[in-house]
């Protein structure tokens, strides 16, 4: 387990370093090193103002979504739970769009607050719908509810944007879900939220371990199931909100990262604490890799990272659906 984490860490470092080199023009290590050491010139400018920020944002965003997906999956015992598919990201996006178009919000703090509120509201909506269908949160029903809520929220966002054309120009790019051309200041928003999420999940790790049993057994060993579930979902929403504020709505990352992390544990039953570490690393790694791919596959253009992730995420979703025979029962 420790070895897996170290290997993932190394892979992440390699991906980050490669991300600084790769793009429309590939740089030699000397150029990148010189740029990082405060070199001057066009190449140095590209490395420090374009590639470094997008890589950093990718790492933070990926880690947030990976952990958010893990929390949602373990708390609802639903292998399909994910902030993107469940409409949480769409909720954050709608509130940010609403804030920008109607209230003229421009500050980072304002955008952050809007994203957090939207993500929390969407989480509450989706999970209360799924709970009201009887049989606490059937995976398939939750996914359907989330999918529909996401479609609804996205159509609200679309309508708002069409009415306010100036906002359309500033927001359309953000809404496509990507790490490029984001102000580095966004990290001031994303890093604290990621820290809160990570520390909070570590604190919840033991009750979450117990929650893997059924609710009754968890209660019998003194876990307050309702409180733990609410706290974990709240943390998941916070993490997703941070990612949305930075990169726009990104789908599938939160689904893929925890599952790949579980795969890495060699069939041993990993503790929640181990899964948290692995999901954080895996999320960051996938995000950076997807971002590199997005830069390369349609060069000289740039593919939306969300599309790249969907190409990986959909086969995985189908695989999960196929494997879970009793899913809809």
């Amino acid at each position: 387990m420790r070895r897996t984490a170290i290997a993932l860490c190394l892979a992440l470092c390699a991906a980050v370093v490669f991300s600084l080199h790769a793009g429309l023009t590939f740089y030699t290590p000397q150029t990148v090193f010189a740029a990082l050491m405060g070199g001057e010139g066009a190449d140095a400018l590209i490395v420090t103002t374009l590639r470094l920020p997008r890589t950093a944002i990718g790492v933070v965003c990926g880690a947030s979504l990976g952990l958010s997906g893990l929390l949602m999956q373990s708390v609802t015992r639903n292998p399909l739970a994910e902030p993107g598919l469940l409409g949480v990201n769409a909720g954050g996006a709608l509130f940010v769009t609403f804030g920008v178009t109607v209230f003229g919000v421009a500050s980072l703090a304002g955008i952050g607050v809007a994203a957090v509120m939207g993500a929390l509201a969407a989480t509450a909506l989706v999970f209360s719908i799924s709970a009201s269908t009887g049989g606490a949160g059937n995976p398939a029903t939750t996914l359907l509810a989330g999918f529909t809520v996401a479609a609804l929220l996205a159509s609200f966002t679309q309508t708002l944007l069409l009415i306010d054309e100036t906002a359309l120009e500033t927001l359309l790019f953000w809404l496509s879900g990507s790490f490029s051309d984001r102000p580095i200041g966004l990290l001031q928003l994303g890093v604290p939220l990621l820290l809160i999420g990570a520390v909070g999940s570590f604190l919840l790790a033991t009750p979450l371990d117990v929650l893997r049993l059924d609710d009754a057994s968890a209660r019998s060993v003194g876990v307050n199931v309702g409180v733990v579930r609410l706290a974990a979902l709240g943390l998941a929403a916070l993490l997703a909100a941070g990612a949305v504020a930075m990169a726009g709505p990104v789908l599938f990352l939160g689904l893929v990262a925890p599952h790949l992390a579980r795969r890495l544990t060699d069939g041993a039953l990993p503790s929640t604490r181990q899964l948290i570490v692995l999901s954080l690393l895996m999320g960051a790694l996938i995000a950076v890799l997807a971002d590199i791919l997005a830069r390369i596959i349609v060069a000289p253009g740039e593919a939306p990272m969300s599309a790249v992730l969907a190409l990986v995420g959909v086969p995985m979703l189908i695989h999960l659906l196929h494997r879970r025979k009793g899913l809809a029962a």
Partner: protein
Amino acid sequence: MMAGVSALVRLLPVMLLVSVLTLAATGIGSSFMPPDRVVAALAGQGSRMDEVIVWTLRLPRVALAILAGAALALAGALLQRVVRNPMASPSVLGITDGAAVGVVLFLWLFSDQANNLTVSIHWQPLAAIAGAAAFGALVIALASLDRGSSKPLKIILYGIALAALAKAAVTLLIILGPVYRASQALTWLTGSVGAAHWQDVLAVGLGLAAVIPVLLLQRLTIRQLVLDPQSAAVSGLSLDRAQVCLLAVAVFLTAMATAHVGAIGFVGLVAPHVARIFHGQFRSGYLFSVALTGSFLVLAADTLARIIAPPLELPAGALTALVGAPLFLYLLVKGRQSHA
């Protein structure tokens, strides 16, 4: 005979609604026209200006909305019957997005350096049909390979997954493709009847007309599909062939509509349910009622989209989602509670 009469009586209100809305939608626009002038222009006795506005600008749009709405609604009703799930619809099952993939792929493959199409644009609906059929077949194949239980629900989940895949493919193709074509594809993808011409109307109309004989021939099957598989087998219905035939019709209708008006979602989901409430799904004329309801929904959405924030026009697809999504959630909650 009596059944026919009572079905007709039930159809009257929605027919009336569609006609009134047609008059209103033809009158509403950048220059408002009261109904009497609209009627005069339609009868060929209005002023020259009025006639030009009505016949070349507004009527094609209204007619296309009516026909596309009917096609999407019928496709939804057929899918819900065949898949045996009231939550099925062309967009939920990924068929609409499949058609979009077909069209964007077509624009990409057959554009030359100067952004001109190297083949006639009239092949575009064919590309839409191919894309829709491919994705429809994929969803069905995935669901039938699935050995697990509760296929009606699974098929919807596979549909959602494939719809996401199709959306990603469309985005990538648009970015890869020529810029001019990209902007054209984007306006079309939002789902709008704004750029309607008489030839679009003709194409969708012919498509609908071609489907009617098939539906008439299969009307018994369609009604019997509501039964569970066992009782349908006992009553001697070769379900598989009938199902495939109806699926093909649904795919064809979806593709025709999507090729001409883009991805207008949720109509195929909502219309069958509205018709079920106001008409009854076992009465004769149910499919007719479904089609009229679909026409009404798209026409109403498009008219609203024009008057909410003039001179801007919202895509009709955004408005149909506002009605359709809450209904879907309601069905989800209600259906599950009754099972539990």
